[in-house]
């Protein structure tokens, strides 16, 4: 219905710090990055934010999830983490915004990351480009059967 208007752009971002920082510190830092990104997008009135969400993965079971729908509302974040101090986070951002190119969106994110790096805390942030993000398939069919969902012939481990 609106899938032509709100084209999804996905970013993979790697955040590292020289010293371990508290999860709360990371939560605030990523919030600052996303706030700056959202504010830059919103400067163009033609750009409508459908939803910008991010999953900051700490490890296989721990994460911080972010959700933002415009520049007026605060960025919601939910911490699901038992760890205290960490020095690395892999983050996926899914940005659904109208009237903005992937390149322009990436430039805004790069600028936001750069600002965060300069703010101190000896943080290194890298937006990973040209890397296919793999998705684990869990289609629940028997081995050697054509998958009824994707219509392909693959093994469970594929």
């Amino acid at each position, binding site marked *: *219905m609106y*899938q032509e208007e709100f084209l999804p752009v996905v970013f993979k971002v790697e955040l590292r710090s020289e010293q371990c920082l508290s999860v709360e510190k990371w939560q605030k830092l990523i919030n600052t990055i996303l706030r700056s990104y959202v504010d830059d997008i919103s400067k163009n009135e033609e750009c409508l934010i459908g939803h910008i969400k*991010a999953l900051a993965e700490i490890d296989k079971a721990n994460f911080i999830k972010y959700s933002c*729908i415009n520049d007026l509302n605060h960025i919601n974040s939910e911490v699901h983490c038992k760890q205290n101090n960490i020095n690395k986070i892999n983050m996926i951002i*899914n940005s659904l915004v109208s009237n903005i190119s992937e390149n322009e969106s990436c430039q805004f994110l790069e600028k936001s990351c750069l600002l965060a790096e300069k703010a101190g805390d000896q943080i290194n942030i890298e937006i990973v480009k040209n890397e296919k*993000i793999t998705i684990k398939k*869990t289609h*629940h069919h028997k081995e050697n059967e054509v998958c009824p969902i994707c219509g392909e012939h693959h093994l469970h481990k594929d």
Partner: protein
Amino acid sequence: MIKNNRPEVILFTGFLGSGKTTMLLKTIEMASVYQKKCAIIINEIGEVGIDNRQMRMLGYDVLDLFGGCVCCTMKVTLEATINHLLENNDDLDYILFEPSGVADPLALYEAITNCGYAESDIQNIFIFDPTRIDFYQKHLKTLFWDSVNLAKYVVINKIDEVSKERTEEAAEMAASIKPGIKSFKMNLNNELTSEFSQYLMGKEVS
């Protein structure tokens, strides 16, 4: 009526960012309390889904519908997925389906009814974000009209972020399209209200 003890299909509709995933998680938690078995189907547009990754990290197994929006390119896949679940899971109580927030809800019905369900069997819950009333009125009129018309209930989420008047306005918007439709007002980050839980799983909890 649902035939042959088929699992009930609960469909969570609503625009991007309205709270569908949070609603889905709350429903799973509630179903778990009552020891009900659920299948979870998520359709997210984008190269990588955030919601299904989150679900997996929480320990849930999710069927992804990737590669496009479920209301158009993925319609056949949805039908295949539901049929696959029905054929291979005799003990399912619920199929919980979260379509993409840009999907046309009407277009989803054909795939579900092709699996033997009547339209009236589908528990379609429309989740409405009252912080975006103006956005809906300006940009999402068709989606709003179609969604409310098909919905059995409306959940007005994020009531902690707007005034009571704004919440009432949201309820009135829904009622103006479908007079008499029941609206539940809540903040999905908290617990589901007991009244809503009764509506959602009333047969099981009574």
